[in-house]
């Protein structure tokens, strides 16, 4: 059956409603496009919001149902359209799901992260939870040979953390703090380490205990702020009382307040975590100590080549991050695991059933 393929789709605007459906086979690539055989799709909080169909999701995305989710994905180039020179059939690739417009004032300045018109695959348009997908070649990046394909879907969240580093640009910094120990926090740790920070301390809560253990196995210094004074701990671990830069990835009011307190005078806080509505800020601290709060959203196109360079060097750490590899039919199980916080990174392998020898993983 070459004219249809399997996909997981949000079939209506209700809680849940993720179903495996058959859809027409992805079209052959047109000019400047490639067709990808999707091998790995990361499931993250955004997918959970689509699953739950939160108010924000309902307001921001205007999908036509069924909508195929999945914005973190990678695969193998199946077919190459005309005018594509940097890709060939069989290439192992990761996909930037932001289809930036290329013509708005921000795209023209290479700031696609704030493009005014950029559908995101898996959010506004069909994404990666499918067997095949045809996409603009400009958004496709070749993964280093040593990266197992199932880890390729981590290129997307990793790019967010690489972009956070681009936004703070402080080369002489020594000690970084990361507030929040989810996947993004751990990836931020990996990215900071690759960027050369000498001391990196991750701050988490009691509920992050397992993730902090994992961080330690990656070589990170961790502090449970419910167990010890975070400032004393930071000084003990780094030899300096405050952080040169803080990456705020948890996005709660408490974590933001803490991040602002923890950064040194004239230091920068990269705001990566999506804060919920309104956050009370003690601006006196910001003003007197000339602190800087820097918004970080997604990534630019130019971030991705940097991600490709880094990702080849951090395979062992990424292997620790992926706790579950499931098939397309098991997508609802993946969602369950995430909702119950019984996993770290879950990836779906849409073509796994059709491949031999996938048992016993």
């Amino acid at each position, binding site marked *: 059956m070459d004219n249809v393929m399997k996909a997981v789709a949000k079939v209506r605007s209700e809680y849940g409603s993720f179903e495996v459906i058959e859809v027409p086979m992805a079209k052959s690539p047109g000019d400047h496009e490639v067709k990808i055989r999707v091998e790995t799709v990361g499931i993250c909080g955004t997918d959970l919001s689509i699953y739950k169909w939160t108010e924000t999701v309902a307001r921001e995305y205007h999908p036509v149902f069924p909508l195929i989710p999945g914005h973190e994905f990678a695969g193998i180039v199946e077919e190459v359209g005309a005018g594509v020179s940097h890709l060939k059939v069989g290439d192992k690739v990761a996909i930037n799901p932001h289809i930036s417009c290329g013509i708005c004032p921000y795209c023209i300045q290479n700031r696609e992260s704030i493009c005014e018109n950029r559908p995101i695959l898996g959010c506004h348009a069909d994404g990666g939870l499918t067997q095949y997908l045809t996409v603009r070649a400009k958004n496709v990046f070749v993964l280093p040979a040593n990266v197992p394909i199932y880890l390729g879907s981590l290129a997307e969240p990793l790019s967010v953390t690489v972009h956070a580093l681009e*936004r703070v640009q402080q080369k002489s910094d020594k000690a970084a703090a990361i507030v929040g120990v989810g996947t993004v926090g751990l990836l931020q740790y990996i990215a900071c380490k690759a960027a050369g920070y000498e001391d990196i301390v991750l701050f988490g809560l009691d509920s992050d205990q397992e993730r902090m253990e994992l961080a330690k196995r990656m070589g990170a210094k961790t502090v449970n702020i419910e167990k010890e004074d975070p400032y004393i701990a930071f000084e003990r671990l780094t030899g300096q009382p405050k952080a040169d830069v803080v990456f705020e990835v948890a996005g709660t009011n408490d974590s933001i307040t803490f991040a602002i307190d923890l950064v040194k005078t004239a230091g920068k806080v990269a705001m*990566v975590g999506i804060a919920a509505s309104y956050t009370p800020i003690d*601006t006196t601290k910001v003003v007197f100590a000339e602190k*800087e709060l820097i918004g970080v959203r997604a990534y630019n196109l130019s971030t991705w080549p940097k991600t490709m360079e880094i990702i080849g060097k951090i395979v062992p750490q990424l292997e620790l991050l992926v706790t579950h590899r499931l098939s397309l039919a098991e997508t609802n199980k993946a969602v369950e695991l995430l909702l119950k916080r019984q996993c770290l990174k879950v990836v779906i392998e849409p073509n796994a059933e059709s491949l031999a020898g996938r048992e016993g993983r």
Partner: protein
Amino acid sequence: MGMKSLITGAPGARLHTAAIPEPRQGEVLVRVKITAICGTDIHIFNWNKWAAGIGIKPGNILGHECVAEVVKLGEGVESLALGDRVCIETHIPCEDCSLCKNGNMHICENKRIFSLHTDGCFAEYAVVPAVCARKVPDFIPDDLASILEPLGVGVHAAQVGNVQGKRVVVLGAGPIGLFSACASLALGAHSVTISDVKNTRLEVASMCGDMHIWNPLEISASAMLGSRSSAPEVIIETTGSNQAIAETLPYLREKGKVAMVGLYSGDVSLNLSRDVIYKEATVEGVHGRLMWDTWDVMENLLLEKKLNVRPAITHEFALEDYEEGFRIASSGEGTKVLLKP
């Protein structure tokens, strides 16, 4: 021999004949020519919670903005000579911490503040740490020289805002807001809009240059800033009013910048996702002036006649008439009020 001085009444103030102080090592004695009333002085005059809580000693001499003449050198002072005309940089750096050693003397970890932790300059004479006595170029007349310290905050804010070619909205037309707006024009902003709820202040602003004036009590933020061509790329916040920043921040453009200068009495509630993170905007605190980059830039802009701030000096009194001076400065009836000892 005694000198006239204005000391804190906690609350209020009173004239007092004090002994002329002696400069110690690293200090100079200056004869004060003209002083100016600042918002900080008004807080201390009103003895609000902030003023009562920062450890000002009883009978402390008020005032930090002035132009003065060096009349006596303390031991070891080589950077200044008798007769030098100087302003006072209010932030007294330790010159030893890592901030001081890395170009951030103005936010030194151990900094003291002239007139809070020392006697001030609302007097015939004052003692000033030599490191904080900034020589004034000859082309700057005395009255302008007396307001260089607050003007420097405005220049610093405009520098942090990186205003060149940008649409700038300055919240607040008090002295710091007005100076931020003037500095933004001087540093090549595409356009400058200045807001205040007091029309008297907006009138002064319109005399200082080609800026759009905005009274948010008369025109809503959405009407003023709601279109693509009017939304600000830079916001300089000098009011310390929750409402001002909360109403304006939603209109900030993508990759915009907020220079925060105003101080709030409590927390301010911001929608960080919508207004900062999704827009990749930046919020940065601005405190005082860089020592001495900001002063250098400011003097150059004055030399090039790009900073037209003289209309900001709305009133002048003898030190003895301080009551009236404080009344006018705190009511917003005047912008910069000078006192002559």
